[in-house]
């Protein structure tokens, strides 16, 4: 549809996006492009709709009763919100990592293999599991105990396992919803390094409360705010450097310098 689609610069392109939960307008008229193989951070105060926006990109809002999404989101050429689009197919191409590590109560191996199995992976599952665990910088720590339960891992390891699980189905985009907020500083650092590493192969959209984290890991930053009706909206988007050093909008500047939160 637009020039940047397909193998162009942008992998996701939201246009005129509105989200309602029942009568409540949670997100108002968001226009946002996500650059391919870059890390885009979504920042903003609590309740500004960062997570809601993130969940529009893989149709996770479909699972919430009463949620309604209007507007277009182009994923390459496809409109994600079109009725022809199968959300399960979208979700196997746009992965997600959640705020609290949520490995299945299965073995480490089965956690990573789950996505392969449900998506009918025809290759060698064992190799794919190893590749994904290496990709998530977890292989060396778990290679001798792949059949142990995932719950035996530390919080940081569990979160990297969740990243490996998402990587296994070879998504084009990984959405991360405050992936380090439940982790200690050392584990957080490991996740941040991993995100930088992964940006070589996949597009990452990360929601974070932590401004330093956004500055450290992201190439692009989008700043959202919440209006008097508690509806979230996009204030500005730009290169992370520019957003943090010379934001165009004074509200962005006020937020990142900590004058309000």
């Amino acid at each position: 549809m637009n020039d940047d689609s397909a193998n162009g610069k942008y992998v996701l392109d939201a246009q005129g996006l509105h989200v309602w939960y029942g009568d409540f307008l949670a997100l108002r008229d968001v226009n946002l492009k996500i650059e391919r193989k870059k890390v885009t951070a979504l920042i903003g105060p609590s309740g500004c709709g960062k997570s809601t926006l993130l969940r529009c990109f893989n149709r996770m809002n479909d699972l919430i009763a009463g949620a309604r999404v209007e507007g277009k989101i182009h994923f390459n050429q496809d409109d994600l919100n079109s009725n022809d689009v199968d959300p399960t197919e979208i979700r196997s191409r746009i992965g997600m990592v959640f705020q609290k590590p949520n490995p299945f109560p299965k073995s480490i191996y089965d956690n990573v293999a789950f996505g392969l199995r449900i998506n009918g992976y025809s290759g060698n599952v064992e190799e794919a599991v190893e590749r994904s665990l290496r990709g998530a910088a977890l292989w060396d720590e778990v290679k001798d105990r792949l059949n142990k339960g995932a719950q035996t891992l530390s919080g940081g390891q569990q979160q990297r396992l969740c990243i490996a699980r998402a990587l296994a189905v070879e998504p084009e985009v990984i959405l991360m919803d405050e992936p380090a907020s439940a982790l200690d500083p050392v584990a957080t650092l490991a996740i941040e390094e991993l995100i930088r590493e992964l940006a070589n192969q996949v597009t990452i959209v990360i929601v974070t409360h932590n401004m330093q984290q956004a500055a450290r890991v992201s190439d692009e930053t989008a700043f959202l705010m919440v209006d008097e009706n508690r509806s979230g909206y996009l204030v500005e988007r730009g290169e992370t450097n520019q957003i943090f050093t010379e934001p165009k909008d004074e509200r962005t500047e006020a937020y990142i310098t900590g004058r309000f939160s």
Partner: protein
Amino acid sequence: MAQKYAVFKRRKEARKLLGSAVYVVFLVAVLVSVMGLAVLLIDIITGGLPWFSWSLITNYPSRHPEQAGLWPALIGTLWLMGLTAAFSVPVGVGAAIYLEEYAAKNRLTALIEVNIANLAGVPSVVYGLLGAALFVQWMALERSVLAGALTMSLLILPIVILASREAIRAVPRAYREAAFALGATEWQVVSGVVLPSALPGILTGVILGMSRAIGEAAPMLVISGLLFVTFIPTSPMDKFTVLPLQIFNWVSRPQDEFQGLAAGGIMLLLAVLLSMNAIAVYVRNRRQVKSDE
């Protein structure tokens, strides 16, 4: 200031006293129920132990107490339990999955839920009458194990459904989201993540239901009648009797010897019940250990 402190202190004493009183009340509640059970068990075991022998298990019923056994009733009970489990587990778990995962949250669903809960409280003899009309007569299954098992399944379905729903509802939403986010379909989420996690709870419900079924005499009395069974069922269409009915039969006889036999039969019934539960608990624990490791 000092006075105020004293006021606080007195209230604390009162609260402590209340705490101790409540503790005693609850302890008495536990003791009453445990002692009731203990007296019952002691009474049964003292009465039944002289009669609890191998021949009690392997012999057929007889007019002569020293030869009487409950082999047909034991086999009948095992048949009934097996068939009841075969019907009620898939249907009960299926209904629970539908209600929790698929059904729209509307008035109709709420109505169905209330009704299922109410069904759990219907007297069991009513199920017996329903089974006699529906399975024995209308479906012409006659007084067969199959008719008995179908009736028993109706009786325990509410228990299985309610417990399974609780277990399914207790599976963290985070697991479901993680599976959906990998591109799983509704059924893949249910079969791959929800059911394995809910299995221990579902098994508990099945144990509860089966424990209820094994002791029920009233509905089986309606279905099979007070038969003097001298054969064991070899197919689902055979006539049958069950342990509670054989015990009931013996208890209703005037001779003391048959009272002893009945107590022995109760011991066997308890043994079957306990071993059934033990198997289920074993299966449940094994699964839990597997997922915790």
